[in-house]
């Protein structure tokens, strides 16, 4: 087991190096750079543009830019943003708590909705309860979360003249202000997220309910609630956990449009701004961060499998 864990951890290094190379090359292949963009439309002489490119190191050969960057990464230095001139770590530090909090709240909300409703739909298969839950979940899959968010904001403004606060207040400073900002985005994201997990829960529970050991438990006279909760749900959870964890990783940096709609100063918005600005150092750092989150969460999920299913052994 220890060998397996060490192997998995070591495998992360080439994965992340691959991600770094891909990001670096792809960004340089896209036409235009930060300097051209910065002075778009301004009557700025070519000499100023050339001078700024030189200052930012954009006139160096690509291989030299790459080795410089790799050297910095090896020293755990993510560099400075080409747009703001501030440290990339500082730029990420400001946004990460918000994205993490939103991901956690949306995940908790999704779990709270998806698992009970998914189980209920499975247990009451082909009844009106099942149909209603399926319609609810298909709605969540069909409607983009940013669109639901837009409708929510419009509704609260029209009905109550209220919209979520535009400035992030940490939960520890003012829980009410914090939740006032988070509740609508978390609901809009959590709904879509719960729809995916709900459908997965329903189908896996249905599958497990048809297994021999469930029939045996029922034949032995075990109460139906215990059959469902102890025998069916626990065994059905593995694929559900996989879906939930991958969605969680996605939420850290993937809520681009939702963050725009609610003006949330999160990682997704930062990444989009960085791409729009051709801020190479910031993009490279963010993609590395998000890739690390995905890799780590996948690793953690694999470890959770062992806890949930004693039959699984890594050697």
């Amino acid at each position, binding site marked *: 087991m220890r060998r397996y864990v060490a192997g998995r951890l070591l495998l992360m290094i080439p994965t992340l190096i691959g991600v770094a190379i891909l990001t670096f090359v792809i960004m340089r292949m896209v036409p*235009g750079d930060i300097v051209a963009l910065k002075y*778009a439309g301004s009557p*700025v002489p*070519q*000499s*100023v543009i050339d001078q700024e490119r030189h200052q930012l190191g954009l006139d160096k050969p690509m291989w030299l830019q790459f080795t410089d960057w790799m050297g910095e990464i090896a020293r755990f230095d993510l560099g400075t943003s080409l747009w703001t001139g501030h440290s990339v770590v500082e730029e990420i530090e400001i946004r990460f708590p918000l994205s993490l909090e939103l991901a956690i709240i949306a995940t908790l909300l999704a779990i709270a909705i998806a698992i009970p409703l998914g189980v209920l739909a499975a247990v009451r298969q082909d009844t009106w309860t099942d149909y209603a839950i399926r319609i609810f979940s298909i709605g969540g899959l069909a409607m983009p979360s940013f669109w639901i968010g837009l409708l929510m904001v419009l509704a609260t403004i*029209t009905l109550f003249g209220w*919209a979520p606060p*535009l400035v992030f207040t940490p939960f520890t400073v003012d829980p009410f202000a914090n939740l006032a900002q988070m509740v609508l985005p978390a609901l809009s994201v959590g709904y879509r997220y719960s729809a995916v997990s709900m459908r997965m829960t329903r189908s896996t529970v249905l599958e497990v309910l048809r297994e021999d050991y469930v029939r045996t438990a029922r034949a032995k006279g075990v109460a139906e609630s215990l059959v469902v909760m102890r025998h069916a749900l626990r065994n059905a959870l593995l694929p559900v956990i996989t879906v939930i964890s991958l969605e969680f990783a996605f939420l850290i940096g993937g809520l681009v449009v939702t963050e725009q709609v609610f*003006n949330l100063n999160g990682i997704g918005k930062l990444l989009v701004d960085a791409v729009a600005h051709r801020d190479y150092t910031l993009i490279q750092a963010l993609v590395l961060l998000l890739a690390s989150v995905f890799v780590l969460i996948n690793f953690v999920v694999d470890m959770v499998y062992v806890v949930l299913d004693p039959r699984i052994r890594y050697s």
Partner: protein
Amino acid sequence: MFKYRQFVALSVALALTLAACRPSSPGAAPGSQQPVAGEQPQPGGTLTFIVNAEPPSFDGHRETTFALLHPIAPHYSTLYKFDPNDLTKVIPDVAAATPEVSADKLTYTIKLRTDVKFHDGSKMTSDDILATYNKIIFPPSGVLSPRAGAYAAVESMSAPTPDSIVFKLKYPSASFATNLASPWNFIYSAAKLKTDIHWYEKNVMGTGPFTYASNTKGQDWVGKKFADYFAKDKNGVQLPYLDGYKALIITDANAEVNAIRSKQAAIEFRGFTPQQRDTLSGALGTSLAIQEAPWICVNYIVPNTKKKPFDDVRVRQALTLAIDRYAGSTALQKITIVKDVGGLMRPKGPFAQTDADLQKIAGFATDGAANKAKAKQLLADAGQSNLTFKFLNRNITTPYEPVALFVLDQWKQVGINATHDVKETSAYQADLRAGNFEVALDFNCDFLDEPDLQLAKFWSASGLGKGLNFAYYDDPDLDKMIDGQSRETDPAKRRQLVADIEKYAMDTKAYQYPVLWWYRIIPYLNAVRGWRIGSNHYTNQDLETVWLAK
């Protein structure tokens, strides 16, 4: 397959049709709503406003975006500035009076106020002005100063006394005095610049009405009233009136409207579209005020003269003749931020030609059908009756996309089959600078009606227009004309010289020409007083005279 571009084209065409059918918007003020006469400013309060982009560095001398000016300008003073009550007039800021100009118009002596303090308590002197202008006009190696060229006439500067500064020019310059009111020329501390010439890229410390309080990147910028600010209003009340301000960075257009609608922000100083204005007007009713004004921003059609057949003046003339700008104005002003028909100078601005004179220029006569007939004839003469090319544009909806689609439709009516080549801004800019296009939609925005600024893109491409002139022509005659107007200090004569340039550049040679000039619309909560719209989104942003009605 129904492609995205076709979908966008159809959507805009539908929007144009609907816009043409509907009555004028109820919320649109016919003119600008001015502050209520006789009201006494009420001190106190915090103004919350929107900025829809993030400033790159904090150094005004280095950057060119309004996203820096709106949150940061309130921390700084300039030597001169534009009068908040009459934005065409230059008034002293830290200068004590208008410059004394020598008879040969080569020496400008400026007396300075002696009561100006920096936010750290130090006194401002002529050393600070000298250090500031040295950084702008004669930047040392490694310091970027994109506007240094605007002061090409300056030979030297000196500070003979602590309260005066002298500029010596190489030749008389018509625009020099107004350029001293540039909103970008923040007065910096000589001591700070001496310690580190790049200090102001990451720090803020000026003599303006507000001190720096905090900045959360991507979220907000906060300023607090500077108690030792030097200016008082005409009644002797200490300025600024506000206790502070908060600039919220909101990049999504819907979120901007929602911020004002929910009264979390009072104003956005750059501008909204007619639809956004109408949404806010419908929702907020009398709580909303609206100011509107012509804007010193314009889209140019730029044929690349290095590419065939755009090296043929007849083809270039046909491109401008085909466009019925007056019909375009009527339709487009209802859906996007363009309105006035004009030449190279802002319509109705101090250097604009009369309508009668403008209409003598190719493409600006009011008879659209006759213009199109001429365009067809010119294309036939040039052997280009079935002209086909790509029209490069950037992927920004307002106003680039509707303007381009209108132009494409106009060209189609004379047999030109141009396709819309839309690119993301950075890629678009790369193509412009590499000359990798046939015809492009370029743009220009300035802080001032000033021919030296508006003609900057018309210098020869291998000379002063390098990196600016995307039509890629070299024309020593036109260079001579531009230089001549720049040195002409008699306003009437200069105006005539500019008119000659317009005729030459837009008609005789048809190098590049405007489509429509932009129109600025600012809907805001009517508690905001003391702010007046101008014809640009760069000046009048120090918030010195802004106050909030209780």
